């Protein structure tokens, strides 16, 4: 397919269900080979966005391209894998039959599938359950087989909508390893997730969405580096000293002998320490704390509960 096109590109994609607007205005660009995290509270329009990209629901307005092909056509879907959020499959099929049928729907040849299906069952740790019907599977096992299904065709883009919601810690690690493996092979991964710890270790870039609008998109590294909380415990602090700290940051909170600062970078810490000592303060401790993605999430998206 068109190698030069980005994996995903959307321009003002919008979806309204009657009065209710699920996705307001989605403009995104995901490059090939990226692991892209799509973050937002419940009801922010994450799943609807994925559904529009895959042609499961039609946009009310805007444009979207998947591997250079307009969304809503089946042209690009042969190179795409998808694990839906509410994964439900034909549970009267046996695990290997399920993968076989879905492989055939990708247009894969029976001969290819004969080796591909056992390979994938092994990848997701279900080789011992190949002959079991999906109706006997636990939620975690279903999520694993769903993941295998999304990888059948060796896709160029994989959409994972909350891929670890039903998994235990071992299962989560498995998903993490699979995502890493996909990345190393140059596969684009579009990850919808609430589990920020997961996003933190897997994603290259993240978008925060709120009310169906992208609030911020940044490389994860700069996002995480760019924010630092510093807690300083010191005596003999004057109002002048506190005022002086504002040259490094706008947020200075004082509670008793503790000051909390938010810094853009770590490199100013020695200067701050020097300044405090020069001002005659007794510094007992100065401890930088990385902001977790969760904290960032709350800051960017807001703390109101998603619906």
């Amino acid at each position, binding site marked *: 397919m068109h190698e030069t096109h980005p994996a995903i590109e959307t321009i003002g994609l919008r979806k309204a269900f009657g009065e209710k607007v699920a996705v307001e205005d989605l403009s995104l660009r995901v490059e090939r080979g990226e692991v892209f995290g799509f973050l937002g509270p419940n009801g922010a329009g994450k799943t609807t966005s994925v559904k529009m990209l895959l*042609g499961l*629901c039609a946009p009310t307005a805007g444009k979207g391209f998947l591997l250079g092909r307009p969304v809503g056509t089946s042209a690009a*879907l042969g190179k795409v894998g998808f694990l839906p959020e509410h994964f439900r499959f034909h549970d009267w099929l046996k695990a290997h039959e399920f993968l076989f049928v879905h492989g055939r729907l990708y247009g894969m040849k029976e001969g290819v599938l004969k080796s591909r299906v056992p390979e994938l069952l092994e990848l997701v740790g279900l080789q011992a359950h190949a002959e079991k019907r999906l109706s006997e599977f636990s939620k975690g096992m279903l999520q694993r087989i769903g993941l295998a299904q999304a990888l059948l065709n060796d896709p160029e883009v994989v959409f994972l909508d909350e891929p670890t919601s039903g998994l235990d810690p071992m299962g989560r690690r498995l998903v993490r390893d699979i995502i890493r493996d996909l990345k190393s092979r140059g596969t684009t991964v579009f990850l919808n997730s609430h589990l920020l710890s997961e996003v933190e270790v897997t994603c290259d870039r993240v978008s925060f969405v709120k009310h169906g609008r992208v609030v911020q998109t940044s490389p994860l590294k700069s996002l995480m580096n760019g924010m630092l909380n510093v807690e300083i415990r010191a005596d003999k602090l004057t109002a002048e000293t506190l005022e002086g700290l504002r040259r490094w940051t706008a947020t200075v909170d004082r509670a008793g002998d503790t000051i909390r600062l938010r810094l853009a970078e770590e490199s100013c810490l020695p200067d701050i320490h020097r300044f405090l000592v020069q001002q005659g303060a007794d510094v007992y401790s100065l401890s930088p704390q990385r902001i977790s993605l969760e904290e960032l999430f709350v800051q960017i998206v807001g703390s109101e509960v998603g619906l």
Partner: protein
Amino acid sequence: MRTLRIIAGLTLREAVRRKIVLAALVMGGLFLTVYSVGFYYMNQDIQRHANVISMVAMKEMRNFMLLAGLYVVNFLTIAMAVLTSIDTLSGEISSGTVQTLVAKPVRRWQIVLGKWIGFVVLLTSYLLLMAGGVMVIVLVISGQHAPKPFLGLSLVWLNGLLLLSLSFFGGSRLSTLANGVLAFGLYGIGFVGGWIEQFGWLAGKPAAVKVGILSSLLFPGEALWKRAAFELQSPLVKTLGISPFTSASPPNAMMIGYAVLYAAVILALAVHKFSRRDL
């Protein structure tokens, strides 16, 4: 073609795995057993009185029994057509099962038609087993057969396809339960309309005949059966024009053509709606 075959195959496999085929075979076998025992004794009774009733009357009685059997088969076929397929679209939409199918490089019409073909295979097999069974039983026990068995059965088959398409039509836009209400509700209107028409014809009330025709236009299922029964009954009853299973004024070829068109249009509407709706 490949996708249609895969989806149709999946539909058949589901029917086998979910024991629909087994249940249909067991119950169908029981039905045919009961029918054959009943027919055997009725036939014996008829033959015992061979000296007092004419050959013609004997033939009529047997044909009456044959039609009674096929009447039930017709009803079972349409019920099967609706009951087995009623949640194949709406159920998979509401459960989300359809999402992984639709996100494959397949067209949505292929999913609808593939399923439809799968159900047609099931329905055809069921009808052949049941109606074929009834006819063979009558033939073996009494040596008698219906006047136009193939034409008659084709019309019953068409009736099944009509209901099947209706269930797809509803399934592409309604919930499973609402779809059931729609399918049987429409069939009921066509059914009662058929009787009103017959009454109107016998009593010479053109208004009642018109109501009957209109309701057949609303849903031509019962009209198909009336024509099927007309083809399956003996020439004598045809001439007399009175029978509990058939109409005094059988639906004409135009009505049959209308039913075919009706089925094609609602199936096309099912495909159209499923192709456009959000999943």
